[in-house]
């Protein structure tokens, strides 16, 4: 795996920096999404994982400019092909929506207007963005439905949403999202409402989009199995903050953040003896109002210690090969000549810059504190550096306590190895 960031073919498609979404409540501003940063390259699939209420959907909605509750404050930056999305006037956002950035929603049962046919609704989107006759639009609709594997697409286009099964509706939804050939597809839990076999089909379809349509996908899910199966890069959100981010295989093999490790540990293993009880994370995620000053996971973390409780909380805890103490990282990072802000998340590179690099480029004690945050209190040593993804550092499983050795994370049991 090359440590050097290959010169990206173009600027990354979407660069999100310090995105915050705050809602007013009883005179206070509550951050639902707190300084989330990530980068999505062309034809990449980025998985946004987290529990309910961790701010996954809010992040996506904020990117789409779909949050319009009164008083909501969205700050930070989201550069889509060099265009700032945060604070973009609705009129220009509208031109992007559907054409450049399309979204697939969680529940295909309710996501279509019940009184119009599927075809009408897809035509509508095409005609909203392109000057096409009704007939041309319908032809494209039928083609798209066919490409999404909808049987008898011409007939299906004339049917109403309630007449279709969930899987068909989700296919129609994806067809609608792709109808104007968007550069970015945001899929907000596209498989949650579907049964497992249909889930696998839809995921397969989403994976194939990048080759057939050249789309980048931001896949929002709470299902680690879906992520392992689908995404190039993974971003774990916890309580509105990024807990960990990195290439999917690295993150699954060697989770750096105790939260990620605990998440992975709670997936039933496919092989070996069946555990009596699956390990669970005690407690519940904090409500946005009660989010602690330091690491949001600290109250539930078995490794919590003093540096974790510091304010401000560390914005990112990167994983991957260099997720180690700055001192140790020196040796590993000569090959990472990246300035801190350039964090193209592609396999082989670190999603948020390597800590070492950042620590070097901004020698803030904050950084050191951040990396010190996720070390075992007992041993007092940082998590072992991930020198090679294939060869876990000695003691990795032990180092993260209950986190098991990498195992096929597959709650939906349709998945084997995390593949990339």
């Amino acid at each position, binding site marked *: 795996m090359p440590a050097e960031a290959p010169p990206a073919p173009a600027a990354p498609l979407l660069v999100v920096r310090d995105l915050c979404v705050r809602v007013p409540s009883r005179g206070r501003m509550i951050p639902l999404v707190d300084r989330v940063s990530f980068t999505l390259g062309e034809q990449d699939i980025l998985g946004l994982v987290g529990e309910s209420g961790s701010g996954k959907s809010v992040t996506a909605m904020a990117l789409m400019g779909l949050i319009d509750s009164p008083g909501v404050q969205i700050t930070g930056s989201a550069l889509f092909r060099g265009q700032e999305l945060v604070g973009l006037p609705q009129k220009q956002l509208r031109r992007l929506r559907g054409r450049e950035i399309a979204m697939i929603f969680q529940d295909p049962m309710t996501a279509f207007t019940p009184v119009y046919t599927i075809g009408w609704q897809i035509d509508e989107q095409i005609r909203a963005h392109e000057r096409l006759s009704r007939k041309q639009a319908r032809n494209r609709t039928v083609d798209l439905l066919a490409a999404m594997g909808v049987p008898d697409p011409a007939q299906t286009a004339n049917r109403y949403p309630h007449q279709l099964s969930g899987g068909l509706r989700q296919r129609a*939804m994806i067809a609608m999202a792709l109808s104007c050939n968007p550069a970015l597809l945001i899929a907000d839990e596209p498989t949650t409402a579907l049964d497992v076999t249909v889930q696998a089909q839809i995921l397969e379809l989403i994976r194939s989009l990048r080759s057939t349509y050249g789309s980048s996908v931001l896949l929002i899910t709470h299902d680690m199995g879906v992520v392992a199966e689908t995404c190039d890069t993974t971003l774990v959100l916890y309580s509105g903050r990024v807990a960990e981010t990195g290439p999917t295989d690295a993150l699954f093999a060697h989770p750096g953040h105790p939260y990620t490790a605990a998440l992975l540990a709670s997936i039933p293993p496919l092989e070996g003896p069946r555990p009596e009880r699956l390990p669970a994370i005690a407690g519940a995620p904090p409500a946005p109002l009660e989010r602690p000053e330091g690491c949001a996971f600290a109250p539930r973390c078995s490794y919590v210690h003093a540096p974790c409780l510091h304010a401000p909380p560390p914005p990112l805890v990167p994983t991957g090969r260099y997720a180690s103490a700055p001192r140790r990282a020196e040796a590993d990072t000569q090959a990472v000549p990246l300035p801190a802000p350039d964090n193209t998340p592609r396999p082989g590179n670190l999603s948020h810059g390597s800590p070492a690099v950042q620590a070097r480029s901004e020698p803030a004690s904050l950084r050191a504190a951040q990396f010190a945050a996720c070390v075992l209190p007992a041993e007092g040593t940082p998590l072992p550096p991930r020198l090679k993804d294939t060869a876990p550092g000695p003691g990795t499983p032990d180092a993260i306590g209950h986190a098991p050795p990498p195992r096929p994370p597959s709650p939906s049991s349709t998945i084997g190895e995390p593949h990339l």
Partner: protein
Amino acid sequence: MMMALLRRLGQTAFVLFGISVLVFLVFFATPGADPTARIAGRNASPQTLEKVRAEYGLDRPLPVQYATMMKKLFITQDLASYADRGELVVPEIARAAPVTVSLVCGAAVIWVALSIAMGTIAAAMKGTWVDRGLMILGLIGISMPVFWLGQVANLITQSRYHDTWLFSWVPGLGYVPLTENPWGWFKALVIPWCVLAVMFIGIYSRVLRADLVALSGEDFMRTARAKGLSPSRILLRHGLRTSLITFVSLFGLDFAQLVGGGALLTEVVFGLPGVGRLTYQALTNLDLPLIMATVMYSAVFVVLANAVVDILYLFLDPRVRDAR
């Protein structure tokens, strides 16, 4: 489709039968509600009572009385008023119905158009002073009793300001048939229309606004926004179109009960000889055949309107189309 229609027709007939039995029992068989005494008048001698009873067939068993009444009402249509001897009830209603229909249809056009406009604008500008202003207007409309509003309108247009240029065109109270003089028909009805519509504008615009606001949180509205549609298109093609399902069912009921005589107060205040006023007169005279006839007429309309609403549903909501 044919089957569904037949079933609907059967239901209608059944409902009408039920209503007729109920009305008949209320007025003829309730203890102490002896129609003979009413027809004969106060302090009538037993002989007179006996005579009246025989004359109207009131000495026969109830089912026979009921059958006779229904036969006279629906088949021979020669049911005569008790209060106004010789006046046939059915033609009387047939004369009154066009007046009521004229009144209610005109008012319905006004209230549907205005309430859709008000409700949609208020929903589109939710939270602004326009929204609040429109909703307060609606509330004022609902709070004003129609008879009071009618009297005030009469006071202003008929007497106080009748001689000013603004209201000099207003004709005297009463009705002008459409076939006789369309312009006169319009002039005679335009003020009653507005007065009758005011309350419904208030109700409907508030209901529609609430419905649209509730819908704006729906998933499909979010989808529509994510598609990059313009706000007006989202509101009208997706929101309003879906809200129409509620709107139509509400409208069907109100329209039917108004045509069936519910516009009684407006008709009385404006001196329009419609079904409502007929019912009012029948009730003041306790004219049982007339009451029977007007109630049946009203029931027919309510049931018919429900059937029409159900058919409209088929067009408005594809989910209903498949359910039957």
